[in-house]
């Protein structure tokens, strides 16, 4: 090696340097542009969720501001009991937007959503939570490897397929067993809906149960407590926030689910507490009526109001669910 210190040629090296720095600035520029592009996409994601709120709000707003819309669908029409029907058989809450006297009572729709959702939760929650306990606490390895893909399969079934099965198969079975007056009713839709929300309740519960540290179980077992008792009195209470989150998320999913209830519930907007009546949910109402509604009519704006209420409700439930599942993560990490 002959290291030589060459006399510095000022001009040459400056040229070299400037070339180098130009290259560098090109790379840096690209770097900067890329970073900006990346940020822009993140901004776009935030913008989308805002746009969803803005557009639903914008189309729902005339219900509050436009005199023309309010003449047909006023506050009291929407929310308060009305004097529809006859003296002997009064109908205080009626949803009948297409008639000589359009009736816009939201109560039957929300009651319908609530009924179907509660049935779904009643079916799905015990099954999903018990299965999650079994997977997390007792199941041998091979069974765990079986149940997880099965749940994933269930989650992968499109809701229109579940709706179809409820409409064609389940409804017939249920009617044969329970002799319902209406083939399509709240129980039928609720059962199918339960299948749709089972995977999310299972997954979130299972995650919560597995996040309970081993040391909890070991401490309990070391005291001579049996494994099932450990699961029941130690692991389950510790995982409670996560399981609660699972229920909240399941509720949110159920109340927003559309195709199943649209196909399997019978779609009659009656205000009734009976589980064997046909029901019409908020989501199904939007799906069934928006296609034929006159653009800009009171009916159109009320449907967007329904969508806005649904969005606000699920948004709140999701925040709540997230809060609780974050809480358990923090609690378990701190332990």
């Amino acid at each position, binding site marked *: 090696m002959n290291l030589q210190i060459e006399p510095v040629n000022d001009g040459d090296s400056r040229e070299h340097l400037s070339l180098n720095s130009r290259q560098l600035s090109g790379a840096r520029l690209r770097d900067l542009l890329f970073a900006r592009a990346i940020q822009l996409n993140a901004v776009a994601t935030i913008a989308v969720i805002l746009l969803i709120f803005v557009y639903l709000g914008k189309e729902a707003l005339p219900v509050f501001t436009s005199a023309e819309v309010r003449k047909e669908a006023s506050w009291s029409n929407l929310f308060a009991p009305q004097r529809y029907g006859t003296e002997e058989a009064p109908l205080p809450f009626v949803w009948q937007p297409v008639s000589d006297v359009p009736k816009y009572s939201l109560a039957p729709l929300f009651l319908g959503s609530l009924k179907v959702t509660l049935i779904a939760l009643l079916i799905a929650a015990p099954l999903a939570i018990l299965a999650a306990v079994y997977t997390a606490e007792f199941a041998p390895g091979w069974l765990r490897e079986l149940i997880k893909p099965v749940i994933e399969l269930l989650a992968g079934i499109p809701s229109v397929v579940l709706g179809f099965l409820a409409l064609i198969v389940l409804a017939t079975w249920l009617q044969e067993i329970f002799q319902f007056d209406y083939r399509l009713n709240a129980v039928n839709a609720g059962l199918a809906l339960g299948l749709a929300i089972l995977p999310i309740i299972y997954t979130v519960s299972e995650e919560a149960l597995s996040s309970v540290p081993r040391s909890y179980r070991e401490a309990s077992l070391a005291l001579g407590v049996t494994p099932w008792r450990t699961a029941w009195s130690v692991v389950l209470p510790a995982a409670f926030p996560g399981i609660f989150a699972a229920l909240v998320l399941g509720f949110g999913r159920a109340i927003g689910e559309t195709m199943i209830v649209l196909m399997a519930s019978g779609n009659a907007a009656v205000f009734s507490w009976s589980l064997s009546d046909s029901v019409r949910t908020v989501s199904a109402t939007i799906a069934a009526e928006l296609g034929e509604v006159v653009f800009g009519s009171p009916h159109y704006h009320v449907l967007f109001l329904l969508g806005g209420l*649904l969005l606000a409700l699920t948004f709140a439930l999701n925040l709540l669910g997230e809060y609780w599942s974050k809480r358990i993560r923090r609690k378990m990490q701190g332990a």
Partner: protein
Amino acid sequence: MAVRMINTKSDYAGTLFRLLSGLACLVIVAIVALILANITIHGKGHLTWAFLTTAPEQGMTEGGIFPAIYGTVLLVLLMTVAVVPVGVMVAIYLSEYSELSSPFYKLTRLAVSNLAGVPSIVFGLFGLGFFVKFVGGNVDRLFFSGSLTFGQPAIVWAALTLAVLTLPVVILTTEDTLRSIPVELREASLALGATKFQTIVRVVLPNAVSGILTGGILAVSRGAGEVAPILFTGAAYFVPELPHKLNSQFMELGYHVYVLSTQSPDVDATQPILYSTVLVLLGLTFLLNLLAMLVRTQMRFRLRRNG
């Protein structure tokens, strides 16, 4: 003595508890098996090559479902083109460019997780209000001198609506993969003088290809099964010709199932066709999910070998 008493007493309850929870697992497995068996048994009879490749005839009581398959494929392709680049960029932001404590990071995270929880029918409303009426209407005003071209339900609006719906799927899957790539790889690249951009494009992303692929496949599987968002944004019961323009209306498998099973004038005649259509739709989504699962396992295997 007391201890033993508690133990014997709790053993009955213990057996019961164990039995019940095991039973719950069994019931779930049985239900899924029942669903699959029912659809396969009733659906396979009508499932022929001709069924997959011809158009419906005689008011949907005969013929095949080719236009619906074609429409579904085109729809999810358009959706993928829209959602994957954006989703990957947002994932890169979340995993590479943001501080976990920065408010903008938290805001983006909140947006993604809440987007995942928005009911699908709300996406339908949003698609109609924003894409069809607002964007489409303005495109017509600006480029088509107000004649109705894009301001109506069309495949491009349906695809974009689905893209918004599946965005969280792509983001979360890709972000997971990016985070699983060892920090040392990035540090090695940066130490050699590469810029962050070069590091991400030449080192991080090539290692994340399978994760991005998984996200894309899961998005397609989800998008192919959603019906509520496309109800008002472009799907149609019957279109005589295949969609060939961005503003064509289209037939779609899920929508086909919905309309045929709720509004068919002759239920008995359409039921075999309906079952076969459901089988095709279910087969498509399961195949995609299976593919995603395989890619994911492969990726985990490779990462473990490298790490």
